[in-house]
């Protein structure tokens, strides 16, 4: 019997070798120098049957504590939101998930149109003129925006400023990326949980190509984009804003404040947490920068009969045409996850996305007020979206251990990023956290104080 994924029978092999004119299959590999041929089997574990495979992975999966089993207050870039059932139904259509990049538009209109719709949804949500087809994730999308700011200034400006209130891992990723072309990355300090605009004004110089902020920022607070725009304008720097797209259902979009690039991750819309990936970066900007954008773009056009259709376009920016002169090296993106997000955004729709965003605000503020009532200090208190920082009075890492023994997954221990914040917990409350769960969480924290 053949393996279920390998249809070649012994008869097939014989006939094919005869056509090829080879005595056996090893002859086809005779061009591999003897000195580098493997003389023993690969050192990987032996094959499993399908039932044994499922059992093996079930055992591994069972050793993970799912956030669907315990109420979770973790966010910081990965959020537990409702995923409509329609999402998995659509992304399980194998015409989508077993296709590749739509190089042949006549048989890829479905994917191309879906991407075009995604680009349109992201553009309207962020208040920007255009958006691309997706990036790997929010952090690398941010890093690509930083590189675009420098190349847009023809590398004459070599400094990127990034606010301390941007996700620490995103700052790390941007640092690694800008090390490529040897740009300077400088961190703008924060004051009371938001970017210190005064400090930014002092740091800004004619060498600054871009200013990066997050809105809502890592601590869940709302940055003053009007002032940040003004500061960037003083030296003609691009204002790059990283945004949770769900927050833009209720908050004024960065585009309305004149942001040049808006990036982020569409994970809140229809994408499972999956231990951090794959998620889906988005990249939105102004038309002025259309030919500098990294990644794929889909555009509308017509066929020979004048019928509307969609194609990959402005490819002269891309690596397969421009090679080392490309705007980015990105090739594959996150198309299937962009599709998942499009389905979720379409399912909730104009009103639903707003309602969902408002619910997140409501629940987070209820949790915050309850914690305050229980005697906790809210660090950087102010208007928040669905996250805020609470001082739990003891190392958050220990508190989290105790919480888990009571069946609660606590918020993020900020001591992970800086020891002076070891008592600070970044709490996220989405629409899925019930009042009862929030009350239990607050009561449990209070009992541990």
């Amino acid at each position: 019997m053949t393996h279920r994924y390998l249809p070649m029978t012994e008869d097939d092999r014989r006939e094919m070798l005869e056509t090829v004119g080879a005595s056996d299959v090893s002859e086809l590999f005779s061009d591999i120098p003897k000195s580098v041929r493997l003389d023993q089997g690969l050192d990987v574990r032996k094959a499993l049957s399908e039932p044994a495979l499922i059992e093996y992975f079930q055992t591994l999966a069972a050793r993970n504590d799912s956030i669907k089993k315990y109420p979770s207050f973790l966010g910081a870039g990965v959020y537990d939101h409702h995923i409509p059932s329609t999402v998995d139904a659509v992304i399980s259509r194998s015409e989508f998930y077993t296709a590749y990049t739509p190089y042949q538009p006549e048989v890829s209109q479905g994917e191309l149109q879906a991407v075009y719709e995604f680009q349109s949804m992201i553009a309207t949500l962020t208040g920007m003129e255009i958006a691309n087809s997706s990036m790997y994730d929010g952090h690398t999308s941010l890093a690509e925006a930083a590189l675009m700011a420098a190349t847009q200034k023809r590398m004459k400006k070599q400094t990127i400023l990034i606010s301390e209130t941007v996700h620490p891992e995103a700052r790390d990723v941007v640092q690694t990326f800008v090390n490529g072309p040897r740009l300077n990355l400088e961190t703008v300090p924060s004051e009371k949980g938001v970017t210190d605009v005064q400090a930014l004004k002092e740091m800004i110089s004619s060498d600054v190509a871009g200013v990066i902020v997050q809105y809502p920022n890592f601590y869940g607070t709302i940055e003053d984009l009007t002032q940040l725009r003004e500061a960037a304008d003083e030296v003609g720097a691009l204002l790059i804003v990283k945004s949770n797209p769900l927050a833009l259902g209720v908050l004024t979009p960065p585009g309305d404040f004149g942001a040049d690039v808006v990036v982020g991750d569409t994970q809140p819309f229809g994408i499972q947490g999956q231990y951090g990936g794959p998620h889906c970066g988005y990249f939105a900007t102004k038309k002025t920068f259309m030919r500098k954008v990294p990644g794929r773009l889909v555009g509308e056009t017509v066929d020979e009969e004048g019928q509307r259709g969609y194609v990959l376009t402005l490819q002269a920016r891309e690596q397969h045409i421009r090679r080392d002169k490309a705007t980015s090296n990105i090739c594959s993106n996150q198309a299937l996850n962009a599709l998942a997000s499009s389905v979720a955004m379409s399912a909730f729709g104009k009103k639903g996305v707003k309602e969902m965003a408002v619910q997140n605000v409501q629940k987070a503020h209820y949790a915050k007020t309850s914690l305050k009532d229980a005697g906790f200090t809210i660090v950087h208190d102010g208007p928040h979206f669905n996250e805020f920082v609470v001082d739990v009075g003891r190392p958050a890492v220990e508190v989290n251990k105790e919480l888990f023994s009571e069946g609660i997954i606590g918020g993020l221990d900020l001591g992970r990023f800086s020891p002076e914040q070891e008592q600070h917990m970044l709490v996220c409350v989405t629409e899925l956290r019930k009042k009862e769960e929030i009350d239990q969480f607050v009561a449990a924290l209070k009992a541990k104080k």
Partner: protein
Amino acid sequence: MKREEQRLIFELSRPGRSGGSLPENDVPEINVNELFSSDYIRKDEPELPEVSELQLIRHYTALSNRNFGVDSGFYPLGSCTMKYNPKVNEGIARMAGFAHIHPYQPESQVQGALQMMYELQDSLAAITGMNTVTLQSAAGAQGEWTGLMIIRAFHEANGDHQRTKVIVPDSAHGTNPASASVAGFDPVTVKTDERGLVDLEHLREVTGPDTAALMLTNPNTLGLFEEDIVEMAEIIHDAGGKLYYDGANSNAIMGKTSPGDMGFDVVHLNLHKTFTGPHGGGGPGSGPVGVKEELVPYLPKPLLVKDGEDYTWNYDRPEAIGRIKPFYGNFGINVRAYAYIRTMGPTGLHQVSENAVLNANYLMKRLEPYYDIPYQQYCKHEFVLSAKRQKKLGVRALDIAKRLLDYGYHPPTIYFPLNVEECMMIEPTETESKETLDEFADAMIAIAKEAEEEPDQVLEAPHETVISRLDETQAARKPILRYEKAKEEQ
């Protein structure tokens, strides 16, 4: 096929309709106007569609019917390894213990996930002959950039700041020179000789004290094994450079040889190619990077390590190139890849490469009388043919590709690599049966005959698709990149 336009989801929208469901708000209502200053409260709602659940499902089902995947039919897209995507892997990736875990859960809550990643890293290290593998990078291109940043860090740690050049063959994927450039190197091109292999003499000429690395795909994009690999490795290593292996074509060599044995120092693999992570219409992929011992200190952070029976993340890596991606890579794709490796086992993977190579050689042989085959030696998992004979009749590779659509096939990669005129690059993969290969060969032969006897049939193709050839010039000249509500509708 009926040619008709598919409306955009925005054009199906009616105010007040919804296709979603949210939980009841069970906490006391607060007015957002009291929380945020008015400047920060969104005034104009985003123009998202308003459709019912059935409308949404019909819309996307209609879109899927206008799309062609591996499950729809033969998809011999060269260098993309469009093999079957096992259904069991999809189910496994959706298990709650994999799909619904948060990257900031303590390690003690996700030991199963970490064990899976560790075992996958080990398997990939064994397959590639490398010492340590990281699963961090998101895709092939990011793997290339990561590998080159590692090489750069290594040279800089040795004070070798003058190593600014990365050598790339002219037949390489476009991502190679692009990644070199993004990593701060100057790419240098090395020529392909008449055998379709790297020109050794030219390689010697361009290699020197400024060489940081050579990037190589082996088998190369012509589907040919670089049989001088041992000499090439010597040339580069003697000059103090490193060898980078682009794993895009690793489907050809599993269990036959390994990049480590060939002398490579750094490797990336495309798990969405060789290891069946579905291509997803363009992604997500996963591009793990493996390195030899000497380069381990520079791997990005964090690095997964085993401490007794426990798996933990090591962030204390002072020489690492830094962080390249949020969290721990494309975990969901990595789960699928590991499920595939466990399905195939060592002999299965070896069989995969043998069958992939035999399939490619068989198809090449069947097409040889009808199309020009520029390189006659045995190919590996893919081969290129040239339509220059057909071009004399006025029919180009693009036309043949479009005609293949009428026969129900996804065309091969065309016009790549750049060094073959009217190039078609065909990769059948091992998951295709002999019957499929024969039927495809028959279609290619029929098209070759059409090119001679009724070329218009080919030139005007496709005839059977939902849309005819699209005006790409107009798309680029007057870009329309998003839907906007027409003025009169507003």
